[in-house]
């Protein structure tokens, strides 16, 4: 059995980073660290579970519900397990003007999933997101911190091939 505490806690370097983050805000305003810590946790686990949220609440000295209500408000936080690569596809107007809908159809077909589903091999989760501030370089999607831009069907295939290796 894995020790669950270990799985939830930040790794050593992330714990140090968390403490740096918390120290950035004025005395008594440590709750400001909530979004940065949720990002840090998601970077470590791929998603944020209720247990992870409780751990963050504890670290900031706030109620767990204060973390839940925030994590559910912001669309970037995955509240359920996700595939190895989360593809966040921009579905907003300017990208659609330059062919975003067609490329999206191709991507869905290629992966064999629709929005908010994970491929059966657990490799890819597809999410639809709104404008990523990359409209002039669209159609586009994001995987973790990386932007994939000027997409067309061929490029999509190349990216998926590459990541499937």
């Amino acid at each position: 059995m894995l020790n669950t505490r270990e799985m939830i806690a930040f790794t050593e370097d992330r714990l140090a980073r968390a403490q740096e983050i918390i120290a950035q805000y004025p005395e008594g305003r440590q709750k400001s660290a909530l979004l940065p810590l949720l990002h840090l946790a998601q970077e470590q686990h791929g998603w944020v579970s209720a247990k992870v949220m409780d751990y963050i609440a504890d670290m900031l000295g706030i109620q767990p519900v204060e973390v839940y209500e925030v994590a559910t408000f912001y669309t970037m936080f995955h509240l359920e397990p996700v595939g190895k690569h989360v593809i966040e596809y921009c579905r907003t107007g300017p990208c659609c003007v330059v062919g975003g809908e067609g490329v999206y159809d191709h991507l869905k077909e290629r992966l064999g999933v629709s929005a908010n589903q994970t491929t059966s091999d657990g490799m890819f989760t597809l999410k639809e997101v709104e404008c990523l501030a990359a409209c002039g370089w669209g159609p586009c999607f994001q995987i973790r911190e990386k932007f994939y831009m000027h997409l067309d069907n061929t490029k999509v295939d190349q990216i998926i091939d590459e990541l499937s290796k």
Partner: protein
Amino acid sequence: MGLKILTEHIDKPGIETFEVYRKHGGYTAVEKALKKMAPDEVVEEVKKSGVRGRGGAGFPMGMKWSFLAKPEGVPRYLVCNGDESEPGTFKDHFLMKTIPHLLIEGMIVSSYALGAHKSFIYVRGELMYVIRILEKAIAEAKAAGFLGKNILGTGYDLELVVQPGGGAYICGEETALLESLEGKRGNPRNKPPFPAVKGLYESPTVVNNVESIANTPWIVNNGGDAYAAIGIGRSTGTKLISASGNVKNPGVYEIVLGVPVEEFIYSDEYLGGIRDGHYLKAVVAGGSSVPILPAHLILKTANGENRLMSYESLSDGGFATGTMLGSGGFIVMDETVSVVRNTWNFSRFYHHESCGQCSPCREGTGWMEKVLERIVHGHGNERDIDLLVDVAKRIEGNTICPLGDAAAWPVGSAIRHFRDEFEWYVRHPEEATKKGAVYMPQNVLV
């Protein structure tokens, strides 16, 4: 080539590093402001420059700064708005990733002017890689003595904190942003009190857009009068335009305010015209929230004058025949784009992004999305068009924050200028919903 204030050195290799930025005159504004000017003198120059907020509303920056309350013993804050989530807008993303030190230099002189000792740059969470670039730049500036305690031996202290958002358009609205920065849901606050009196941590706060702040080093170096001499009328200075859509050269352009729209679209110096074999149908000139205009009204005002890229000229004619400069998100559509479908897409966006606090916005955006979805999929009827106009009107002006208006305007304007296309959808649903179907409006310039 027009004058460049923000992007003059953008092509220099290594401009993202402190060393190269400094070599091209970077951080001289910090030296000048902190060593030779009193904070109020910096405010005065910004006032004289006439620079208007570049986040969308266009409120004069110097005036906003002069409203900041200064009670004794209470900290004041400067918060930079890098949430950039307005569809069609990607200039702040471009500026921050390419020349991060420009924003940091601007944050230092602006914080000094306002008497802030801890300032925040709030960046949308999707741009985590940009956050890392900014953090690296901050560390470099700190190592060189431009941030931290006793900057350049002047006794002025400043810390900069970069804060990630979490994926919520509404956090671009300044009071929602402050809530988010306090670790809460991004629900806009009722005003008053305004942030200038009670903002971050209940302290007096100024919120300014990335591009607004990035203008301040140039203003400090060259003076407010020199800035005011650039541009046209009350549209002083330059503006970053994010251009997307069916043009030959999409991208971010720094223009001197006052360039004719026609030149901006068709000249090779800018967008290079519409992609080959196609022609201009419509433009959304200032980000998804502003009214859409058909080709003839974006190129010329209703009076037949050339439309210019300026606050005044773009809004000439009010909402009947004009639009707004907004955030400068310039979305160009050719004749293959369905205005009806695009309006549905935008409605879905606003419904998705409504924080849900006020019922006209929460319910109204949902209604508009639903009705538009029905029309787009061939199940609409004639009455739906007037229903949409009615719902949009009921949202406008009846909400806590301007997201409600931002949701209503694209719908109202699309029906005002492209009613025939909506009618085509409801009268010929089979034809309209065919893949690749294109409606040829009567009034486009070929």
